[in-house]
């Protein structure tokens, strides 16, 4: 039995790891950039590690640098974090079914549900002979570790980097584009996909690049609900 279990875990890992390789690249680069930036503000590698491991919120951590370099205001930090991370609400709704009945690891999956993990889990089919539970667990765990380790490394060695990484962070844009194309394969996803791009672009033009996410989410929600009959048919 025990042999069997470790075999199944290995199989799940072998299926999960390749899916996370783009995130490995993107998170190491961006995580390191974050660690370097923190360093320049007087926060060493351990602080980057703590922020990444505890808060684990990518772009919000970059925003939070400004919070760490100004007057102490935890309430503002909390509210800003709610707003910047509001998109997670939609990830949770999308994952209600997929994350059902996963027992103990469910809490961890929810705690680490970032853009990239959501994108992979919602776009990739579970391979047929692979267990759902360890598969999702490894995707979440690997993405989490990439970010935490990347930001720690950035704080440690970032300033000595000589390789020109300019543009390498495009891997994450690439990841989202490709997963968008994966969604596009099923016909019923096409109208929602067009709504997502069109409405967000509209919100970006209307509200500017610092304030468009929440209006975009509201408009997407409205469009999806109003267009329900058309989308379902």
């Amino acid at each position, binding site marked *: 039995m025990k042999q069997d279990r470790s075999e199944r875990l290995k199989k799940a890992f072998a299926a999960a790891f390749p899916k996370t390789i783009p995130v490995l690249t993107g998170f190491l680069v961006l995580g390191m950039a974050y660690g370097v930036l923190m360093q320049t503000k007087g926060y060493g590698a351990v602080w980057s590690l703590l922020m990444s491991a505890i808060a684990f919120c990518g772009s919000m951590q970059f925003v939070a640098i400004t919070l760490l370099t100004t007057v102490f205001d935890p309430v503002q930090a909390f509210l800003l974090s709610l707003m910047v991370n509001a998109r997670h609400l939609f990830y949770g709704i999308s994952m209600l079914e997929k994350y059902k009945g996963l027992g103990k690891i469910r809490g961890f999956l929810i705690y680490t549900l970032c*853009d990239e993990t959501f994108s992979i889990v919602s776009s990739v089919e579970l391979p047929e002979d692979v267990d759902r539970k360890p598969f999702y667990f490894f995707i979440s765990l690997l993405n989490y570790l990439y970010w935490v380790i990347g930001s720690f490394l950035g704080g440690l060695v970032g300033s000595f980097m000589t390789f020109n990484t300019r543009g390498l962070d495009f891997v994450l844009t690439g990841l989202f584009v490709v997963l968008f194309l994966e969604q596009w394969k099923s016909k019923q996803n096409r109208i*929602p996909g067009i709504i997502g791009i069109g409405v967000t672009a509209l919100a970006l033009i209307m509200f500017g690049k610092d304030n468009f996410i929440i209006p975009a989410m509201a408009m997407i929600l409205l469009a999806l609900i109003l267009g329900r009959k058309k989308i379902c048919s």
Partner: protein
Amino acid sequence: MQLTSIQTIITILAVALGTILTRLLPFILFPEKKQAPKIVTYLSKVLPAAMMGLLVVYCLKNVTVTSMPYGFPELISIAVIVVLHKWKNNVLVSIVGGTVVYMLLVQVVFV
């Protein structure tokens, strides 16, 4: 460091709390054992595609189309990804191809 260590830790926890709430709330509102309302089930099916569109635009938010290089590196690289993906249908090949093209464009071509 402008804040004290304690203040920094409290700030980290405040940011974490905000993040956790946004991730956890849907699972609290619609618990496993109860059937979620129909509209929520519907949304859970259509939101992933819509949010993938949102994330693509989100990644491109800093692109300026009114001055050099007019968003061409992004446009060209995304076109490369789309073509590669139609052709090879391999997630990694498409992403690596698009990223390499993008890096060449921003480091060598549009300097």
